[in-house]
């Protein structure tokens, strides 16, 4: 407990060699902030286009989470006492563009949902990689409370990806998938 507090208050002075990593961390945070905001604008279009009720519901739930992720990034920045620079996430822009093109192309096709799920999973994987990196850097720099915030986002991105796989495979209705997922996660969390 004491150690944690010490690291949090003394971190910048204690680890000057991480200055470059700190700058990279802030830049990546800013990029993800832009990515999440872009995604929050795109997801309602996907939800509206989706044919199956489960996919629609899942995208709507993830839209709420996505809005929360943007807030979380602002909280991380505040807690570090940094201002986020203006950055554009080109990769997210390209991923969304690809998703929208695919949506338009398959708008009347029976494979629309399948195509939407594929596009959404590419986006989720982008975010899983990005937050995975941010969490690793937060750990490295001893930003404990920021790590907790970023980890909760990373978990939601992973869950969204897994639920998309479940909806694609029609293994069970969404609600059952969610219940099963919460149980699995709770058991996994209990392990040391």
């Amino acid at each position, binding site marked *: 407990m004491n150690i944690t507090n010490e690291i949090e208050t003394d971190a910048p002075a204690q680890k000057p060699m991480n200055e470059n*990593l700190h700058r990279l961390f802030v830049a990546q945070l800013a990029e993800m902030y832009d990515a999440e905001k872009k995604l929050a604008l795109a997801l309602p279009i996907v939800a509206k286009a989706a044919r199956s009720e489960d996919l629609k519901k899942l995208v709507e739930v993830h839209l709420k989470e996505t809005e929360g992720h943007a807030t979380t990034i602002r909280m991380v920045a505040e807690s570090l006492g940094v201002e986020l620079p203006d950055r554009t996430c080109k990769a997210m822009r390209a991923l969304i563009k690809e998703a929208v093109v695919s949506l338009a192309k398959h708008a009347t096709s029976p494979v629309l949902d399948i195509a939407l799920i594929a596009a959404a999973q590419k986006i989720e994987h982008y975010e899983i*990689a990005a937050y995975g990196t941010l969490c*690793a850097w937060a750990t490295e720099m001893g930003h404990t409370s920021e790590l907790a915030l970023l980890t909760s986002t990373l978990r939601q991105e992973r869950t969204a990806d897994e639920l998309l796989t479940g909806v694609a495979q029609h293994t069970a209705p969404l609600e059952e998938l969610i219940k099963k997922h919460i149980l699995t996660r709770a058991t996994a969390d209990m392990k040391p």
Partner: protein
Amino acid sequence: MKQTEKNTRGRNSTESENEGGEMSAELHQLFLDELADLLNAETQLTKALPKMAKAAQSQDLAEAIRSHLEETENHVTRLKEVFETLNEKAKSKTCKAMKGLIEEGSELMEELKGSSAIDAGLIAAAQKVEHYEIASYGAVRAWAEQMGHTEAVELLGETLDEEKAADEKLTEIAQESANSQA
């Protein structure tokens, strides 16, 4: 009346058959489109990876990128094989997402030139690329399975495993370098 009923039923069953046929024809086309996207993505990557290997500071990272370059060249060959097993001509279509990912990676490399955080940045960019591929191969593999393309499932599964292993290797390298600096 009876006749009409029979006709209606007849038309319904034809409709649903048509829909099933249309579904599999369209899934097949979606599958081919995604393969074309991946073939282009992998080819773009074979050009980007040597630059990343050159920019890497640690020997371990440079080596991991070079070994993944070899795998990536192999993935190109494997995708062409998948087209062959389907009796389809190999096609390539510009993958805008990979283009965006690589562009972002090059900008990051430029920004971090001479910085001690260059390897951390390279690993981050590379893992985004790996995750893009994991999602794509995951989708095409699932579709191949759904359509009963056994050989394609095997080939795509091999690549998927290599992409996942490459991602894990990058995490390992990141952790080792963090530990050695601590």
